[in-house]
């Protein structure tokens, strides 16, 4: 990380008492940021709290509200905002949600909200903090709309590793491998992409990495850009879906966790990441395909032929989800209907757990490998009552974003 320290304002209730404040400090420090509490007088607290109008009882939530108002009104300075409260607290959840929405609407500050338990570690918070600092530090880079020169992006994900070579704003080669050994999988995917594009590694002007293995792969291939997937995927999504201006919503249901990102002019404003259980991720669909005896690529078309409405399925937890899968098949439901129900269940989990935390603005763009499962896209569209956009190369979204953003380093070095 380069650049000046990014100052992240913390609006919270409970982390000190849950033993997780230290983890918040550690995550911020790891990405060159510092967490601080906006300073106010008691009179300001009382006025801001009253003006905001959400009459909560908890003093620390009143303080969080007053601090949010101070940030929006410019009475306190920050580069980004981190909102945190206890998991399972209804009062705090309401405040968290409303503050996130308020800050997003009335300021340009990137904001992320998180509900923690005493088990939350700095590792869990790291990508979120990194995204906050990226948005604060690299606004100019994130504003890039065209890919220039010859660049490559590598997305080292938890399930698959993808590589894309781009030249003069066009994709000229792609490659993907299941992620086994991180560096070996990246080498294989890169070799495939280079082969398809007909260029050599040395010909590339710049390289970018993203995804879980970004640091390891980035170091190995001497990447110019190593950046978390929240900002990179947003950029890739709006680039491919041709909606770089104005608002959009990016949904990426991944192999291990999901991202829902509210984007404005290609830059994430609010985002959520995670999911309670793999039951709400691509992993559950992989299991479903295996159980149905079909390849994952066939699951989507299968689901499109089925109606999931009369198949009871709840993948809130992957164990119970699998159980209902087994039960449904035992009860004689068709493969098509079970596939459709599994898609609906995953979409429903993402909808209930994550999409409530961001503002859904059209167009809604679905990306990542799971966006190729048509049944899942249809289920999401039904839940959101909108036509979901799946751009070409949507499974390569992180690699495209990384190739596009890394071209920012071409001009610099040239």
């Amino acid at each position, binding site marked *: 990380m380069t650049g000046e320290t990014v100052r992240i304002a913390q609006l919270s209730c409970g982390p000190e008492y849950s033993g997780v404040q230290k983890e918040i400090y550690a995550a911020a*420090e790891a990405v060159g940021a510092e967490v*601080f*509490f*906006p*300073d106010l*007088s008691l009179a300001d607290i009382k006025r801001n709290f009253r003006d905001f109008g959400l009459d909560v009882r908890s*003093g*620390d939530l009143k303080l969080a509200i007053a601090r949010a108002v101070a940030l929006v009104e410019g009475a306190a300075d920050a580069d980004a905002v981190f909102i945190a409260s206890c998991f399972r607290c209804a009062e705090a959840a309401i405040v968290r949600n409303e503050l996130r929405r308020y800050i997003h609407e009335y300021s340009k500050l990137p904001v992320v909200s998180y509900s923690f338990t005493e088990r939350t570690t700095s590792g869990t918070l790291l990508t979120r903090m990194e995204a906050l600092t990226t948005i604060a530090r690299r606004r100019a880079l994130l504003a890039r709309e065209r890919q220039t020169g010859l660049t490559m992006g590598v997305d080292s994900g938890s399930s698959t590793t993808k590589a894309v070579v781009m030249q003069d704003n066009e994709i000229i080669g792609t490659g993907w491998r299941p992620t086994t050994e991180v560096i070996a999988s990246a080498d294989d995917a890169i070799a495939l992409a280079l082969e398809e594009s007909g260029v050599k590694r040395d010909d590339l002007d710049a390289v970018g990495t993203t995804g879980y293995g970004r640091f390891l792969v980035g170091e190995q291939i001497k990447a110019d850009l190593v950046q978390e997937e929240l900002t990179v995927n947003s950029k890739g999504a709006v680039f491919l879906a041709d909606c770089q201006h104005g608002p959009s919503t990016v949904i990426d249901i991944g192999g291990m966790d999901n991202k829902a990102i509210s984007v404005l002019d290609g830059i994430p404003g609010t985002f959520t990441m995670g999911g309670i259980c793999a039951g709400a991720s691509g992993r559950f669909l992989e299991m479903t395909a295996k159980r149905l005896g079909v390849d994952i690529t066939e699951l989507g078309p299968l689901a499109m032929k089925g109606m999931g409405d009369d198949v009871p399925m709840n993948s809130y937890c992957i164990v119970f989800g699998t159980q209902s899968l087994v039960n449904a098949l035992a009860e004689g439901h068709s493969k098509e209907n079970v596939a459709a129900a599994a898609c609906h269940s995953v979409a429903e989990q993402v909808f209930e757990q994550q999409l409530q935390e961001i503002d859904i603005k059209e167009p809604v763009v679905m990306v990542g490998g799971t966006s190729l499962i048509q049944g899942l896209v249809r289920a999401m569209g039904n839940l959101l009552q909108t036509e979901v956009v799946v751009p070409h190369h949507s499974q390569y979204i992180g690699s495209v974003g990384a190739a596009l953003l890394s071209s920012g380093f071409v001009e610099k070095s040239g």
Partner: protein
Amino acid sequence: MKEVIPPLYAGTVTKYVFIESYKATPDDIAARAYEVSGGVMIKETCFGLQITGKEEEVERVISHVRELDPAHIYVKDRGFPPGDPRRCRANLGGARPGYFGHEHEMGFIRRIAIGLEKLDSPSDIPASESEQKNTEGLSVKRLMELIIQEA
């Protein structure tokens, strides 16, 4: 925030001394505290003092300071020693949450001061002790009467 901070001043207590008086300023109570400070550590603040040391010594200094204006000097325990980097405003970027609570109570502490002053003159003490106020409001019957009356 990085370094592990070993327990400072283990076995001591820290107390806040707040002053809200027309007779004495925070400077005055500091001067008075220093007269008998002995082994205790005294830190002057905008609202008064923070005194750190062995409990009985801190109490001794506080008794001496209180004599200056008993009804207008207030004392409270503090968990942290003064200047602790974990609670210092400079490091947090803003005041610790407890500060606002004190600011809130200091906003009406004069009412307590009057109460303390009047303790010495029993004739001023109201007959009834603090009882819960009747907040049940009007009976429906009485409310109806009033509505009819106004109509």
